[in-house]
């Protein structure tokens, strides 16, 4: 995934090389200009559009993943039973792997930054109806804590033990995707936030609250969206894709980001 879209946007972020394009034009005709054009088109291509327009195989389950701005559509390959529970293993066509367990991120491989060997100790289920039952929008719910151990690669920050605090949110957080924030369109969404309980005031890229948020369809008990920061500067978000049509009321207007077949 990263490799794929690193290229798609790599050409844009590398500003200096773009300066070569006019120089190249002086010597490029025909096929060479096609190469320039193809690369340019790849550079400006919007992956969201491609994903939104994709005709999906209904027999498969997909996950739309945004890894720090690089977007790709992944497909479910396995459901493995691990110590964390049943773990979904998702694949990109560029052979990156994202693993989720109960809606939480429990592993990645092949990205710029990866979480490996994530162990969750008795985490509360994100889809547990008790989490949302009776929650008063005007009052914050009491936080629930659980422990987690994770390894961050390739920096070899291994077996990091931490306490994670889960909090049900009364409203969609500020960084929730606009696609899900319309209450009329998604009346059954509940929002959950998880943060690492900091043991020290020191802040480094590797010591930060590493916030996660989840959107849970309380009607279907499905986690439809998640976002987890792997470091202070690198976050991954994911949608269960396509967005479940059943969550939207019949007369809602179509979301601009929704796929045509959703």
């Amino acid at each position, binding site marked *: 995934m990263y490799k794929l879209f690193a290229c798609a946007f790599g050409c844009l972020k590398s500003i200096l090389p773009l300066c070569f394009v006019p120089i190249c034009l002086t010597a490029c005709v025909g096929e060479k200009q096609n190469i320039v054009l193809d690369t340019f088109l790849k550079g400006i291509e919007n*992956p969201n559009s491609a994903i939104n327009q994709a005709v999906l195989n209904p*027999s498969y389950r997909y996950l739309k993943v945004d890894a720090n701005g690089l977007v790709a559509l992944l497909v479910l390959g*396995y459901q493995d039973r691990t110590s964390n529970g049943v773990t979904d293993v998702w694949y990109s066509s560029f052979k990156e792997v994202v693993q989720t367990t109960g809606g939480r991120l429990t592993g990645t491989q092949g990205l710029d930054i990866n979480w*490996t060997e994530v162990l969750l100790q008795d985490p509360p289920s994100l889809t547990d109806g008790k989490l949302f039952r009776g929650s008063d929008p005007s009052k914050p719910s009491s936080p629930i804590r659980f422990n987690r151990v994770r390894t961050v690669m390739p920096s070899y920050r291994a077996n990091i033990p931490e306490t994670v605090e889960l909090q049900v949110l009364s409203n969609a957080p500020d960084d929730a995707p606009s696609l899900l924030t319309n209450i009329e369109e998604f009346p059954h969404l509940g929002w959950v936030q998880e943060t690492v309980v900091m043991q020290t005031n020191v802040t480094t890229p590797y010591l930060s609250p590493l916030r996660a948020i989840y959107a849970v369809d309380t009607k279907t008990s499905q986690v439809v969206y998640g976002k987890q920061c792997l470091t202070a500067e690198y976050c991954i978000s994911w949608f269960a894709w396509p967005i479940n049509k059943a969550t939207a009321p019949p007369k809602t207007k179509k979301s601009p980001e929704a796929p045509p077949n959703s």
Partner: protein
Amino acid sequence: MRLFGIARTFLISDHAVDACLKILSHLAPNLVKTSLAFSFLCSSLAHAQATDPSLQAQQTISNTQPPVEGQRLSDWLLKNQKTTTSTVDEKPSYALGTIWNSAAELHSQSAQKQALLQSLSELPAPSDEPSFDKSRAALAAFIERMPVTGRVTLPSANARYLEIQPKLNPILKANDQVKVPLAPTSITVIRSDGLLCKVRYQANVEARQYFRACRPQSVTTDWAWIIEPDGTVKKVSTAAWNEAKQDVPAPGSWIWAPPRGSGWSDKKTEQFSEQFSQFLATQALSGDMDSLDNDISQRRPGTLSAEDQYYVSRNLPISPNIWGETGLLQTPSARTAPAGTGSIGLGLWQPYGTVNVAFSPLDSFEFYLRYTNINNVPYGSQSLSGGQTYKDKSTGLKLRLLKEDTYIPEIGVGVRDILGTGLFSGEYFVASKRYSDFDFNLGMGWGQLGTRNNVTNPFTSVFGSSFSTRAAPVVGSGGTPNQQYFHGTAALFGGIQYHTPWDPLVLKVEVDGNNYQQLPFTNTIPVKSIFNFGATYQTKNVDFTVASLGNYQAMFMISLHERLDLLNTPKLAEAKPIPADLKTVGNYTPANPGLQIFMDPQSSSQKSASVNTNNKSNTLNTDKAKKSAATTTVITTAPTAAPTAAPTPTAANYEQTLRDFEEQTHWKVTDLRATKQVWTVDLSDASGVFVRSRINLGVAALHRDAPSQIETFHLKFYNWGMLVSEFSVNRKQWMLSQTQLLSPSQRHPAITIAPTPSDDEHPFFGKGFSKLNSSAYDSTSTTMDSNNVSNTGLGKVNSPHTSGSAQNTNLAQANKKLDKIIGAYVPTATEILEQEKIDQNSRLVDVVPRKPYDTNLGISYTQIVGSPSAPFLFGLGVKADGTYKFRENTWVTGTVNVRAVDNFGKYTYQPPPTGLQPVRTDIRQYMTQSIATMPNLQLTNTGKISDNQFISAYAGYLELMFAGAGGEYLWRPTSSKVALGLDINRVRQRQFNVWTSMQNYSVTTGHATAYWDTGIEDILVKFSYGKYLAGDIGGTLDLSRVFQNGVKVGAYATRTNVNYTQFGEGSFDKGVYISVPFDAFFARHSDSVANLLFTPLIRDGGAMLMRKYRLYDMTRTRDDRALSVGPGD
């Protein structure tokens, strides 16, 4: 728990512990006192005992299931999932420390161990370090006890990831051993005195904290080697002067950190440290029950403040000053940007604006090109340049003389405006020394950098009073080394850079050496202070700086920078790579025939093997998958376990093989021939930079379809009819390397460069086209589609471009041939005997006919920057290229250019005459007189007269300004670092309208050229000597650095018998250039290279004929580094 209780008696005697504590109490009494609070034991290795290492090798992983012959590591991991996972209540298993011991590595690692011991024994003992020999003995004993394990570093131990990454997924042998250990809770530091110190692991803590816990605080180190639990070795900095972003040691790491100032930190011992670390990487994890340190109790690191404990080392930030040099604000530092860095920056301060372009061809060298605009000075008379303000061109360089070390600052020397007018010239020596977030600079400057005159020019006392004065710059006669370097007044300058805790922000303060009272054109800036201060905000590719100049005015800078040596664009616009299957090749048969690797979702044979998913279907929408591959949508499927049979080699799918080869490589296939064990593919006009990558892509198509008895692929690279290179692919080795992670001793080069014989088929005067090609081009049998002006590649025998009966005839013949030769071909005994007789000669199995012509239409763009007439001149138009091949090695090519939009009307400047024939200075007339031009139309013939000798002859309108005839000879052995060339040309100057008419001037020009790949810092040297277009005689020296990705940065200078005065402004011809291969920059493969040439002035002296075809470029694939350039496999 030790399941197999061969007690490795690694016992520590009381005596050893006592001795250890004695030493520590002597070295650090406080440490020992405080350590009593912890459970600390240390081991004297010299007294430790161990059992036979060979037994340890067995026991290391004997608590796990042995692998099955031919089993993938991923399969083993999945089958042993129960033992490799655990709940958080138990001690977790540790995938990061997964061990694969390959029996194949035992022999080489045994030699590695002996070499390590030998290196240790040969280390010189410092005379002032009597304990060195004792430490050496202890380390030798430790090494002796280390078993030879055969351990191979694994890039990943995630089974689900390995499944889809066959190149990372080893295939195990029955006598291999795999183990996923339990997670250690410690890290072990190996002290130079031979003691082991096991420290409790803490997450996020850098290496320095561990060895500090094992040594007195007074003992410091500069470097440490971390051997991570997965076998990766990292050298990390550990001192304030060399601090750098680094990985931390994971549980189970070993750390080797020789103390500063000891014999173990000497430069000479660095090689030993590397060897030692590499061998440690073959060992079990530290803290593991099978490790050599398993009997040592661990200790907890001393109590650290949170800031110390979680301290994150950072790199020294570097950024350019307003002149483009790495430095502070106005002053330079001794720092240089990493090799391969290119930047372009803009600096604004009244009355100046500077555009700086900088490159670092070496880590220790920067050079700069600069345009300086002076707002309050006109360029020239109103009639010459209108209202344009003055523009000054200049170049500069900086060389690092000394690299920073513990006590030594980095020292550099630099020159500004080295060959320009000298308006802003200056020279400097500068030293930089870092301490953590601070970087201190102190230097001495001359010229503009020394006008503050606060110190006596030291050169006056050394070389005499002539150094006390400096001549004023002379506008209009730049380009000459001014011989005023380090002359005149001098001044000290310096400053401090502070890297703030907010990572992107750097603060700078400096004392300037320039007093701004002696600026060019009598400008002055009434600065109020000798200090400049400012702040730089850095992002990955852009630096912004705002600063105060002498407390008088503001300065602004912006700099864009990029590592040109790291340019590599994934080939998103290419077809998806063809996966390689592991299958029978020659006598080799995979141990596990059912072994499969992940197949591409486009494969029709793919079956979903999703486990416990909701998937009901075994198929994918392959059309969609293809579409998604072409776009950026990512759709894939689960790894498959379904075996795929090799396709039956029929004529139809064999044709597809060549199509796929062309689609993957963008090389044109002319024919494919076979012997019993070899396929030979002839490629026409094949060149390029990323040769290995493209070969790999193409061989995947050949490997997919070739019969199993084919063991070698020969790829013959013809370029313009000459057999330039031949690459031999060992199919089995290639297949193994593509389908699994091989252990180091099994990694052999699969692609090699073969020597090319002289080419009998394409001699200089012979008939060039290969057999079927010529028939395909026969007008009686083939009709070309005139509407199809673009060469579309494969036009097979059943191509729609062939007509009626001819098509049928060709098709029948070809299919017959194909069916016979590559179909289910079962030869009779007689045929076999006959075939064996003629097997020396390959059989022709397929030929790809091609059109003899190629045309291209595109946009043309021309620009001139910095002309006195206007700062920026451009022309935009349409350009048409065409080539017609009479034979493979004889062709005519031409270009017509039509300018559509331009501002060349402003191009009025005509340089003054020089006394030389205006062979280049009439460029204005050539560019402006005619809207439609024919820059090139020539007939060329090439050939090869022996194994290593190439020749060419050409005639026509050879370039924009000259027409004529000439020839070239090149001697270039395959993979040689040296080549020699010779060209001679008789040319006449063309009329300014750039069509067919000529001027009277004619000349014989030519050069003998030597090419030398020095092997030093990837530097190429090219030297030409001969007669130039204006009739002057002299030589051109060209130095360039070629990076791994093929990007080349170089500079040249020409000196001829034309003196500086006659040459005019600039004094001699010189320039710098960058070549960027399309392969590195664009999303598709291409043979092309984009060249950016900067020549400060166009003059007539030292002007070479610009020939379109040069044999050295045409034989690029013979280069010694042809297979090493590129992104790697």
